């Protein structure tokens, strides 16, 4: 029985109040106020976010939130993006779909990241949820265009189909024809990751023509430049558009057609695609550039002069993704032209080359940091850096929330002083008080971790590679970073001591990935035994870890908190350290 207080409201009133609270953090806080609020909240929560699909079981989620409409699940660890997680590791969505299909048919939205999605799962979605509206698959794999055909054929109310960075088995481009002629509700379609060469243009054109609410359309590379005009002609209301291949023989009629159609798209704010660009066709987009807030040129292999011309036409740009062909000179132009820039990502055009192929250095990043007052998120690949530059960047841009720097050669020192870059990154964490995400690179000692532990109080995600001298480095991070949720480490001399000394900290985090370091099998077993609410998983393709001495380091270790207990879908190269693993220290 809850206390009768002077201001206790009927449940419906509370429910109405809660309906204004959308963020998960706030919802979780609300549910902790008292038992009755917990009850009311759980019945009216409509969106569920599960950051690690193994932290909880589908049944537990459904039991607690019986009426959710939207679910977001994340599977594999982030380092899976870089091939560090072997195939077959896990992250299967099917059990979730199966449970939800049985529980209730009114699920509307599924958003998945780094999960294995099979055609069977897609078919089950298509069959089970009559009001299904949104499917977003980000960095997923395991399905083919057959699964997509099932979705297209059955989901009459589908509004959003977004496949970003997925690995899709492209069996046939004709899956698009499975959208019935009566289907018109599409608002967002992103098929940029599909590879098939024989694209069904007429089906695509017809689909675009009848879906008059279409706001986002991102095509794949197979769509040739001369087909774009026909597609865009029927969708002048588009807000976000991704081209296919942006190359063709230079023909004035194709050019003017394209330019004409693009200039009639008055709402266009975001452009992407641009595979295989030839500069001759770029001016076709100049008319829309002044309204652009987002531009993804990260597949465009055009050189600095053309990039500079393009960028100078976009004064309202907030987000730019580009290859390092832009060079320092291009970034200087960006800094002076785009004062609203909030996010910049510069990718390497030749990541495996030993020699630099472009003139892109720390100077470009300094220029943008100095020139763009709203810049808060950066991903930057370059080949040299200095403490001086990092300090300048930190002092001029304390509003960074995400700072990811990748100096391509591991353990590269400050090129001016040959010192480690500890002080530079130290400045970043000291000045950027709201920093939530940080990726380190270059030559770094334990000192940088001291700085991070001391200053990075809001840091939620940290990525570390080839850095540090001893366990003290890891200890600083685990003991100092109060808001840390995700930590991923590779190739650092971190071992058992720091991990075991901070074991309790691991329960406050979503996950820890640590590979090619110095954590012994014995320590893994101890951790697994002592911390029942952590899943301690050893990934080792060399064979069972107990076939080697216990003080041998394990290859890869993934530790995450879970209330679902150890998982049962592990492949042969993953071992879970649970309470029964026993304690045998050599």
């Amino acid at each position, binding site marked *: 029985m809850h206390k009768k207080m002077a201001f206790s409201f009927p449940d419906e009133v509370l429910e109405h109040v809660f309906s204004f609270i959308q963020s998960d953090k706030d919802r979780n806080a609300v549910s902790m106020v008292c038992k009755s609020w917990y009850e009311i909240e759980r019945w009216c929560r409509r969106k569920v976010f599960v950051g690690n699909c193994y932290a909880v079981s589908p049944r537990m989620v459904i039991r607690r939130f019986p009426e959710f409409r939207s679910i977001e699940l994340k599977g594999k660890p982030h380092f899976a993006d870089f091939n560090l997680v072997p195939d077959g590791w896990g992250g299967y969505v099917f059990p979730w779909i199966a449970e939800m299909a049985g529980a209730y048919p009114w699920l509307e939205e599924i958003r998945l990241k780094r999960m294995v999605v099979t055609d069977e799962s897609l078919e089950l979605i298509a069959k089970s949820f009559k009001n299904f509206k949104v499917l977003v698959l980000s960095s997923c794999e395991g399905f083919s265009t057959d699964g997509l055909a099932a979705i297209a054929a059955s989901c009459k109310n589908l509004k959003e189909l977004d496949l970003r960075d997925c690995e899709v088995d492209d069996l046939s481009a004709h899956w698009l024809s499975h959208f019935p002629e009566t289907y018109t509700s599409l608002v967002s379609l992103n098929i940029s990751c599909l590879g098939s060469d024989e694209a069904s243009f007429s089906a695509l054109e017809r689909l675009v023509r009848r879906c008059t609410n279409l706001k986002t359309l991102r095509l794949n590379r197979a769509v040739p430049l001369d087909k774009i005009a026909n597609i865009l002609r029927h969708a002048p209301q588009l807000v976000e558009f991704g081209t296919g291949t942006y190359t063709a023989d230079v023909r004035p009629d194709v050019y003017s057609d394209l330019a004409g159609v693009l200039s009639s798209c008055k709402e266009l704010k975001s452009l992407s695609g641009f595979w295989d660009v030839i500069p001759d066709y770029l001016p076709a987009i100049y008319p829309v550039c002044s309204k652009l807030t987002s531009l993804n040129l990260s597949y465009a292999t055009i050189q600095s002069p053309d990039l500079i011309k393009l960028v100078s036409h976009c004064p309202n740009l907030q987000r730019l993704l580009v290859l390092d062909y832009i060079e320092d000179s291009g970034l200087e132009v960006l800094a002076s032209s785009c004062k609203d820039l909030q996010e910049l990502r510069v990718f390497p055009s030749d990541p495996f080359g030993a020699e630099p192929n472009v003139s892109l250095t720390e100077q470009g990043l300094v220029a943008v940091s100095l020139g763009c007052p709203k810049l808060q998120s950066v991903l930057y690949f370059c080949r040299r850096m200095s403490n001086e530059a990092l300090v300048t960047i930190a002092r001029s841009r304390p509003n960074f929330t995400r700072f990811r720097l990748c100096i391509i050669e591991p353990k590269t020192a400050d090129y001016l002083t040959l010192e480690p870059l500890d002080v530079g990154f130290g400045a970043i964490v000291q000045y950027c008080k709201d920093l939530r995400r940080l990726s380190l690179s270059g030559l770094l000692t334990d000192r940088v971790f001291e700085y991070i532990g001391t200053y990075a109080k809001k840091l939620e995600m940290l990525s570390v590679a080839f850095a540090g001298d001893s366990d003290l480095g890891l200890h600083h991070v685990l003991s100092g970073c109060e808001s840390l949720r995700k930590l991923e480490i590779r190739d650092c001399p971190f*071992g058992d001591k720091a991990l075991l000394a901070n074991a309790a900290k691991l329960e406050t985090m979503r996950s820890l990935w640590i590979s090619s370091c110095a954590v012994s099998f014995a320590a893994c077993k101890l951790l697994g035994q002592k911390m029942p609410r952590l899943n301690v998983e050893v990934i080792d393709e060399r064979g069972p870890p107990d076939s080697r001495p216990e003080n041998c380091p394990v290859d890869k270790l993934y530790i995450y908190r879970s209330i679902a207990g150890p998982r049962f879908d592990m492949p042969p190269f993953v071992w879970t350290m649970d309470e029964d693993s026993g304690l045998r220290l050599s």
Partner: protein
Amino acid sequence: MELQLGLVLPTPNMLKGFDLNNHGLDQLKEMGGLAAWNKAAGCFADKDCVKSKRSFEQAFGNFTEECRTKPLLLWSGQPNEEEDHKDQKKATFSTTDENDAEEDDQVVGWPPVKTWRKKIFQQQQQPRVGRAENNRVAENENGRSIYVKVKMEGVAITRKIDIKVYHSYQSLTNSLITMFTKDKKCNEDDYILTYQDKEGDWLIAGDIPWQNFVRSVQRMEIVKNWG
């Protein structure tokens, strides 16, 4: 194990105006000290697991003592890939041929470029089968991209450009001028564009029709015009 008890203050010319305030310095000193390790050993046990605390201390005994005396690395000379891996990294990295689409010689997952993006990059740089000479960096059979190295006399960086992007000598030279004048201030009349053809001969660019040039150019060099 060595415990750092404090910070080495940075030298003034290394950092202009950057300073850890005293508050930070004290905190760090404390963290680096023995006190921190004692605290850490205790925080393994939270309020709910008082029992565990005891057993943990039993298991590890003089935890902090061990920290100072035991060597950091736990493994005892057993054959271990990880040990050699680190030393080799520098070597393997510099032997990477820029055309090498295979990852055998490279550090796995480094640099951290998404698989998806790497695929696109590799597709754009597919080396042609049977071509031994690597000056012509990459050629795609569909005619999508042909990357050719361009060097300028007196400039350290060799650039790679996609020759398919241009359709005339004029557009090529315009782009090259813009690219290279950043590296080296010069008058464009002082330089001429030369190229090496399939037979290995160095010729002045501009004499043969553009399409023939595109098919035969292996690499280019911008040299001073002494004529």
